[in-house]
């Protein structure tokens, strides 16, 4: 047991029931478009919980994650009633998040090799983060970086610390990313498609590691994925996005066993085996709405066989679903 885990294994504070992250009324637009790419999305993550944000590519899930971390491109216009992180309001002052980034909010990206600088050794890159947030120098810093690599179960961390990203496998790079994201000991980890492009075995290893670390550190996780199967296996709760609208939210098991939104139901039906992903769904008819033109009020209406006139004119309310879910549909499945 090393010093890092010793600190983290201290008795946990009295349970705090307020959510760690609460987003409400979030809309994001790009350029001169009138139709927002993300429309009026609200969700919350409790302490220690893992929420999966699920949707096809283009559904806006990554944009939402980048907005929470405050690293969205300048061209985006963000509007939100509130983005509250542990009582700190981030929606009003977008710079407030800068103090949290890397320290209280960590982030893991897909395609880890490209997400690491090719000209610095991985130990150096982790060291940069540790130096920034824990003010360590010299030998202590080097040791902390090696420890961080050991914590994500990288074999022979002393030697690997001196390696460059191009010398490591994709899975190894993703572990380095994870170590880098956790170097500041964050309360919230945002994992943006962390295993896309990795083979199944490596994917499972990375996600198991992520889950284990989250549990050990009492860390909340916002898990962005297009793979509903992964969401079921690794998330406590699931929020389903379609074309920038939140259509359904609930505990992972409920959404899977009894989806209420026709879109969720299709997603579930389309994932009979673990191998299928939302990306290669052939089963959902109709095209993703083109956000540069006009779109129906419920953006799923054109693809939905249950759609009625109201779906095109009035945005569905987000209604509670027992026990703790919500669905946005005028004609939900029972």
């Amino acid at each position: 047991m090393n010093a890092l885990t010793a600190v983290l294994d201290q008795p946990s504070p009295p349970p705090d029931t307020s959510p760690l992250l609460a987003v409400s009324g979030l809309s994001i637009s790009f350029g001169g478009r009138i139709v927002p790419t993300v429309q009026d999305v609200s969700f919350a993550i409790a302490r220690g919980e893992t929420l999966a944000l699920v949707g096809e590519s283009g559904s806006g899930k990554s944009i939402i994650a980048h907005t929470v971390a405050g690293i969205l491109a300048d061209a985006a216009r963000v509007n939100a009633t509130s983005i509250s992180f542990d009582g700190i309001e981030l929606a009003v002052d977008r710079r407030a998040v800068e103090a949290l980034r890397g320290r209280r909010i960590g982030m893991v990206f897909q395609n880890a090799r490209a997400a690491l600088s090719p000209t610095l050794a991985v130990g150096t890159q982790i060291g940069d983060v540790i130096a920034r947030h824990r003010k360590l120098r010299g030998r202590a810093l080097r040791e902390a970086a090696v420890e961080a690599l050991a914590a994500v179960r990288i074999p022979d961390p002393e030697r690997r610390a001196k390696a460059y990203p191009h010398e490591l496998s994709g899975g190894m790079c993703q572990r380095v990313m994870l170590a880098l994201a956790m170097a500041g000991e964050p309360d919230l980890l945002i994992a943006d498609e962390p295993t896309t492009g990795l083979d199944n075995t490596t994917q499972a290893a990375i996600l198991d590691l992520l889950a284990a670390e989250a549990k050990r550190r009492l860390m909340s996780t916002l898990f962005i994925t297009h793979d509903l199967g992964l969401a079921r296996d690794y998330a406590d709760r699931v929020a389903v996005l379609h074309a920038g609208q939140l259509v359904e939210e609930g505990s992972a098991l409920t959404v899977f066993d009894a989806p209420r939104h026709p879109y969720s139901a299709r997603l579930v039906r389309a994932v009979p085996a673990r191998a299928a992903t939302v990306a290669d769904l052939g089963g959902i008819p109709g095209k993703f709405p083109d956000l540069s033109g006009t779109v129906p009020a419920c953006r799923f209406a054109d693809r939905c066989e249950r759609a009625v006139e109201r779906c095109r004119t009035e945005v569905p309310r987000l209604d509670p679903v027992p026990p703790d879910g919500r669905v946005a549909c005028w004609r939900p499945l029972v």
Partner: protein
Amino acid sequence: MTADATDAPARRRLPRLRVRGGAWSVWLVGLFLFLAVFGPMIVPYDPVATNTRVSLQPPSWAHLFGTDDVGRDVFSRVIAATRLDLMIALGAVLLSLGIGTALGAAAGWAGGWTDRIVSRTIDTIMGFPLFVLAVGIAAGLGNSVWSVVIATSVVNLPLYARTTRSEVNRRRSAGYVQAARLSGIGSFTIVARHILPNVAPILAVQASLNIGWAILNAAGLSFLGLGIRPPTPEWGILVADGADFLFSGEWWMFVFPGAMLVLAVLAFGGFGDWLRDRLDPKRA
């Protein structure tokens, strides 16, 4: 996801003067060509006639660009020099275009040893300070207009040879070339009739962009006193002559020919961009 800045509001972009590739450069090139052909006929004074009674006069209505130390009209000399400067630049560009294209086409078509020798030679020339090479060649060839033309064209050869080589090489296995081959057409005909016409637009753009550079190179050589001899009016020589009088404040002698050089380079550079926008939209 379209989170890139190219989506930025188009409405904020104000209409701007197109500095590069604008139609103005075409007019300017036209003007230069006009001066090259008719310049010597329309100048107010004989560009080489001396008149010591009016030496070193500042610009006036009688002498727009002033007069030099022996009373020659600077305006007339600058205008009269246009023909020589453009002839040198165009001659050099055409020469390197012709030889460079031939070498490049041979290397690109034949491959093997021909390719290796040509490519190596090109690399050697490219891997060397080009102006130094031009000075060396011009020095070797002695004092004539031709030595400037040849020196300028040799250092430009690699540009054309390289482009042609890669373009010919790329098209060697194209369908229409294979078809021509199968119907028994000879190599030379295939390259000349079927491949080079496709490469021509690219070379034309390159050549027009290259003229400005050739003007600078030639003027640099004659500024140093290589090739062309005074009293022939030539922009580089005019600047060099004027430089001697800078210290006594007779600035007009070097400023006007220098400004003419700048204008010519800008005009041909803009013209090259204009041509590229029309012939080769991919690279615009």
